[in-house]
């Protein structure tokens, strides 16, 4: 897949993984890996990018005597997901057109 496209898709995937409930790094990777190729090291820059873009916030909580960071989606994050959905509908139409070979 083209790099730029994959980058954008991964951002959306991570947001989707924390949409319903806050999650932490390792779980995000586990939740996403059946659908998309992602590793802990790939996730890290994405989380930072989303945080600086105010798509998510980070809080630290204790877990088993150590600290763990939990990621919480913001309103702009939810907005980004909605935007993706509408973009995707458009893309699907193009996809259909392309796979039909442009016939009427």
């Amino acid at each position, binding site marked *: 897949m083209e790099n730029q496209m994959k980058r954008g898709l991964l951002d959306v995937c991570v947001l989707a993984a924390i949409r319903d409930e806050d999650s932490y*790094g*390792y779980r995000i990777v586990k939740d996403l890996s059946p659908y998309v190729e992602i590793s802990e*090291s790939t996730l*890290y*820059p994405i989380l*930072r990018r989303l945080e600086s873009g105010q798509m998510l916030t980070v809080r630290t909580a204790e877990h088993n005597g150590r600290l*763990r*960071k939990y990621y919480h989606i913001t309103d702009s994050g939810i907005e980004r997901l909605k935007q993706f959905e509408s973009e995707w509908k458009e893309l699907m139409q193009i996809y259909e057109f392309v796979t039909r070979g442009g016939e009427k």
Partner: protein
Amino acid sequence: MNKTEFTEQLRAALKGLSEEDLKKSVDYYEEMIDDRMEDGIPEEEAVNGLGSIDEIKNKILKEIPIVNIVKEKIKPKRGLAGWEIALLVIGSPVWVPIVLSLIITGLSIYMTFWIIILSLYVTDLSLFLSGILGIVAAFMQTNGFATGLFLSGIGITLTGVSVLLFFGFNQITKWMFILSKKFVLWLKKLFVGEKKSAN
């Protein structure tokens, strides 16, 4: 490699980043290792599965703006003493021009990059236009059929070449972007990490 060794190496590789960036990165990877181990993966495997320190470093550096990295590098590690400030002021005729020339060099490298791309497309456009002009001239001239044929032939050739070049130039532009990204990463690496000793 166990967790402690990994953390040490990562910290060394990222030396030069701001304290905040460094801590965030190391914390994140520690948390990943802990979570992996909690999930039943043995320590060695949990660490090695994260990838090499060098790969991790590249991924981290790509997301941190170069300005932040340079700023961190030139920021004094402690408050300056009065005599140091005095010395800086007295020495300013020496260091201000040096810093300025460094900044200007950086800017000119950046501009060169864009101007090369721009000049490629301007060349292409001029080829295309002269091609079109040749075709037009072939019909406007009054020197006879042979000249007309000659002019239109050249015109069509030029137009064709310009179209082909356009695709070539697009590819070159793409490469230039990749190259410039690599260049920036290389620059960042000059500032971050302990110099590797021979081992």
